[in-house]
């Protein structure tokens, strides 16, 4: 008996060890990735690198236009995605009946949007925004002259907004659910209408959730490249975009271009690592903020 018990414990030790090892391998890869990128990029992490244009055929200089383009992209994207995402979340929590066909269809659509490959969004942006809407706008406004019917920052941002819409919806929905039913009832019992209740009680209580959703969406949008490959991202531009119909540079695309398409990959290696570090810092700090906000919302729900 004792022997059997011992054997079982030894086996248990091995099996438990395997699962622990798996977790550790994943973490180790992540750590190695971070260390390598930080090590490779930290020498480039200077104000000059962040604030200047690329020079000498992109073999020297900074990445300012890519940072600027990324910022512009996520701002326009948020302006489109956050209101629509928030309203959808309001519908799902406040208006829809929990298990109605419509609510379930919308939830399924949202989850489908979340798993559609990002390259499909790129195709859609091209087929819908550029070729359908853009070309249509051109034939109306510019008499067929090419202005909107080509890749630009507006179409890229809107494409990205579709991709990040589910992120916003899910976060805001989670936050709306933390508003106690009591408060809604209190408001309604005072003779407030549904919309008054939403506007004055539900929404003010879920600002941090909307914030979390926005941050997560921005983080996602800042890192995605596939949707903007052919909807507006540019290889190199000498000037910043100054209208919505301009193309733009963006961090992720810059990394891709520099590491695969440039004539002398080795020479620009520091720039590539530097850009990757900037992008990684950006997305990680955004995610970290969102995690903290979310943690606080969840704590509020328990309290």
């Amino acid at each position: 008996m004792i022997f059997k018990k011992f054997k079982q414990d030894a086996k248990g030790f091995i099996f438990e060890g395997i699962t622990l090892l798996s977790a550790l391998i994943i973490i180790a890869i992540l750590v190695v990735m971070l260390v390598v990128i930080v090590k490779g990029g930290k020498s480039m992490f200077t104000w000059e690198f962040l604030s200047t244009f690329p020079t000498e055929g992109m073999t020297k200089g900074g990445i300012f236009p890519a940072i600027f383009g990324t910022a512009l992209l996520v701002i326009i994207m948020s302006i489109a995605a956050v209101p629509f995402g928030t309203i959808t979340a309001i519908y799902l929590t406040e208006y829809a009946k929990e298990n109605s066909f419509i609510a379930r269809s919308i939830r399924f659509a949202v989850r489908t949007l979340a798993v559609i490959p990002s390259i499909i969004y790129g195709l859609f942006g091209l087929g819908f925004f550029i070729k359908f809407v853009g070309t249509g706008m051109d034939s109306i406004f510019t008499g067929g002259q090419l202005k909107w019917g080509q890749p630009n920052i507006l179409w890229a941002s809107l494409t990205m907004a579709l991709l990040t819409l589910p992120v916003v919806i899910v976060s805001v929905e989670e936050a709306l659910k933390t508003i106690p039913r009591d408060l809604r009832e209190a408001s309604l019992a005072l003779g407030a209408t549904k919309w008054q209740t939403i506007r004055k009680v539900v929404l003010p209580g879920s600002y941090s959730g909307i914030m979390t959703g926005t941050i997560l969406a921005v983080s996602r949008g800042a890192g995605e490249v596939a949707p903007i490959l052919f909807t507006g991202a540019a290889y190199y531009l000498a000037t910043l975009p100054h209208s919505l119909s301009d193309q733009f540079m963006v961090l992720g695309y810059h990394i891709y271009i520099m590491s695969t398409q440039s004539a002398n990959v080795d020479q620009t290696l520091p720039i590539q690592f530097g850009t990757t570090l900037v992008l990684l810092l950006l997305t990680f700090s955004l995610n970290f903020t969102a995690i903290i906000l979310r943690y606080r919302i969840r704590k509020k729900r328990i309290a």
Partner: protein
Amino acid sequence: MKNLKIHTENMYLYYGSKMALNNVSIEIPENKVTALIGPSGCGKSTFLRSLNRMNDLIDSVKIEGNIFIDDINIYDKNIDVVNLRKKVGMVFQKSNPFAKSIFENVAYGPRINGINNNNELTEIVEKSLQNAAIWDEVKDRLHDSALGLSGGQQQRLCIARTLAVNPEVILMDEPASALDPISTSKIEELIVQLKENYTIVIVTHNMQQAARISDDTAFFYLGELIEFGKTKKIFTNPDKKQTEDYITGRFG
């Protein structure tokens, strides 16, 4: 002759297919305190929430029969539910102030009614807080968060909030169940004062409380209204055996 404020006729309520109220007919007089008592799950809270159509919020609830307030059937399809709830206010079991200042909590109702003049609002807030017997405790910190108040104060604030809308009926769902004895007695005093101007229907678990404050008492058991009458009679000489058993603490 007492005036009838609320009466129901053969009212049934279902959660999905489960019957929660079975043939309830009751007549609640104006400017009196009516207590609803009975063991947990007997349908008294459900009944209370039907009186301002709070149950509309629950999808699975289905109601049959009639509920009249001032001889108007409140489940008629032309009824304006929003106005109904202004007329029939509600105080909940768990105090539920908004995460706003004390002032804004009370001003919420008037604001919703379109009163935005600051002087008017200040006056309404002050009177409401006075009538809810909490003015002296909060007058120096009207603009502090309501969440900083004690449980008893929060509950009286919620009553003040209801008063500010100037309802005719106030429904109270075990308003003192979570409070300490001192807060409870304050609320009870308040309820007795309020009946001068309001019709009050209160659900309570606490039979002493029902005996102390109410004029009439209704005993619910398993979704049925077993007995309804003068509080004094119910507590001293009930007609039904079940009522007696409950009052004397043999079950529940």
